[in-house]
């Protein structure tokens, strides 16, 4: 009897947990599902009432995607075409490539600078260390918009307006303090003996970082890298203001221009959004284990 009621209660608890998880999942995934479904529907079907929650073959089309890649409207398509879409539509794919290049460069710079700096802040005491660290982290508190105008002038003076390099520089400046902060707390929870053993085994400080600390701290580094990547990939304000041509324009700016205007092609915006979501989703799937380890195990526990 007793056993039964305990296992019954356990089963109930499990059920509640599962239901709650499903609810959260639904809340998070439903918009994404809606975007994906819309991107494969004919434009006029999108206005049907009731909407096609589970689209059937007669409303299916690949037109939006083929337009995004070729800039041409297929024969007999119901797609809505205006000058604005033809222009912006062809920019979607190159702008995603721009965003990827910028975000990857920012990620690499973050690790190269943030990894040793975070380590130094976690292991060494020097004059003014905590104040310096405080100032560094405090830069995160500045809203982007407050430094937009000075940055605009700075970029123009440096001839970096409308270049990928300019955005890479700004995004690195925005993300590096956070990377340092994450890695510092990660290192603080890492036993110092690994590094010391490496020193005793004949490694210089730098070599011990590369050969021992980096492999051991992989989850923390992966988490920090993902944050840097996502910040750079999804940044909007600087990208809109500091770029003009497709030489540097990023997916956020192009997608925004697709979705603004008098009339909006919902099918096209959805298709562009799906393309823009793909790279980070792929990265998240590939590095799933590291990200979860980095975020759950030791991060920020100090």
């Amino acid at each position, binding site marked *: 009897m007793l056993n039964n009621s305990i296992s019954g209660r356990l089963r109930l608890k499990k059920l509640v947990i599962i239901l709650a998880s499903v609810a959260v999942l639904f809340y998070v995934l439903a918009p994404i599902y809606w975007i994906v479904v819309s991107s494969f529907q004919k434009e006029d079907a999108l206005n049907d009432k009731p909407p096609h929650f589970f689209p059937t073959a007669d409303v299916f089309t690949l037109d939006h995607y083929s337009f995004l890649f070729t800039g041409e409207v297929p024969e007999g398509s119901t797609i809505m075409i205006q000058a604005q879409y033809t222009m912006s539509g062809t920019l979607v794919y190159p702008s995603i490539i721009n965003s990827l290049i910028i975000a990857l460069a920012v990620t690499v710079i973050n690790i190269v600078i943030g990894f040793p700096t975070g380590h130094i802040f976690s292991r060494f005491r020097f004059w003014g260390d905590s104040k310096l660290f405080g100032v560094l982290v405090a830069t995160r508190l500045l809203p982007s918009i407050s430094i937009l105008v000075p940055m605009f002038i700075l970029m123009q003076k440096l001839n970096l307006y409308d270049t990928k390099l300019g955005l890479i520089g700004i995004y690195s400046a925005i993300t590096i303090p956070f990377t340092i902060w994450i890695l510092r707390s990660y290192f603080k929870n890492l036993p110092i003996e*690994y590094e010391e*053993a*490496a020193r005793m*085994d004949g*490694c*210089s400080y730098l070599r011990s970082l590369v050969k021992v600390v980096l492999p051991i701290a992989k989850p923390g580094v992966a988490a920090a890298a993902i944050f840097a990547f996502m910040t750079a990939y999804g940044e909007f304000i600087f990208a809109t203001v500091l770029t003009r041509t497709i030489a540097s324009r990023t997916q956020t700016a192009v997608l925004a221009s697709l979705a603004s205007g008098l009339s909006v092609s919902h099918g096209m915006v959805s298709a562009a959004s799906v393309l823009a979501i793909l790279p980070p989703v792929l990265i998240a799937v590939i590095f799933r284990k590291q990200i979860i380890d980095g975020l759950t195990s030791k991060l920020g526990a100090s």
Partner: protein
Amino acid sequence: MSYLNLEKITKNFPGCKAVDELDLEVEQGEFIVLLGPSGCGKTTTLRIIAGLEIQSSGKVILDGKDVSDTPPERRDMAMVFQNLALYPHMTVYQNIAFYLQNIHTSKDDIDRRVRQSARRVEIEELLERKPNQLSGGQRQRVALARALVRSPKLFLLDEPLAALDAKLRAGMRSEFKLLHRSLNEQESSMGTFIYVTHDQIEAMTLGTRVAVIYKGKVVQFSPPKELYKTPKNLFVAAFVGSPEMNLIEGSLSGSNGSTNFEFQGMSFKTGTRGVETLQRIGQEAGEVVLGIRPEAVTLGSTTNLDSLPFEILTIEPFGQTNFVRLRSESRVSITCLVNPDLSFKEGEIVGVNFNPDCVHYFNKQTGENVLA
């Protein structure tokens, strides 16, 4: 000049002095144990020798060279850490080979030496495993193999057995001893060990000499036997030996040719050691602390005139001997070890005798052993 010299090493941490003008001289081939309670500065001392901690002042001189400012990777010392610190991302083989790779040894040479070192601690079949696939004892051996693959100027060991259970610890202890002996017998280069522990049994069994450290200073540096037989002061007397030495406060006084130690209304005839003590003190009488090890206390019948009456509180059988706690009417507690074949009972009043040749007298103010 000794092989390793520590000269007036001091280490200040914010708010405390971990090591206080510590001096130590070690000869090549010795097995030195740094023994002391936790927080006494022994580990800090070892880390200063290693170069992992920078001394606030003082010098570390190794093999005639001042290495005080040399970074750890260039001091040529091997270290076994308390938590072992095996690199979790490397296999056992890579763990052992890491030092050799760092000094750019040839691949064949690395392979030969790694296998030789692994054979020495009997972990050859584990070389391809990762540290998290090993038991505690196996990890211990890997950590040791990692040190043995080198012929360093010093082997530093920081409580290497602390993570093991009691049975394994005893086994590894004898292996350390064997290892030290074989290193110094067979090879031209001698193995010099510095071993930190708070376990006095490890210290007594392993050390060729033991440095007892207390409050950042070496309070006694001598072979283990001497440490046990003639502790230099009260701290060493109380810290070394298990079960602990009995310490009784009282006063020594001489009268008509014999010297007596008086405590809590009881009196013990001291024999020659008491006479010498009084001579050293240079007084007719003096306040002292009497120290006697439990095995030098014997129990007998109360009818013996010289014996002191004590009540047996508890008898704990240790197997080869019985550990007995006693208390006098005046509430003086002592312990002793007796042959388990003797039939004493708890609650019984017995006559206690101290072997006068095994009694120590400590100065009550300074804690120094008067005769040492």
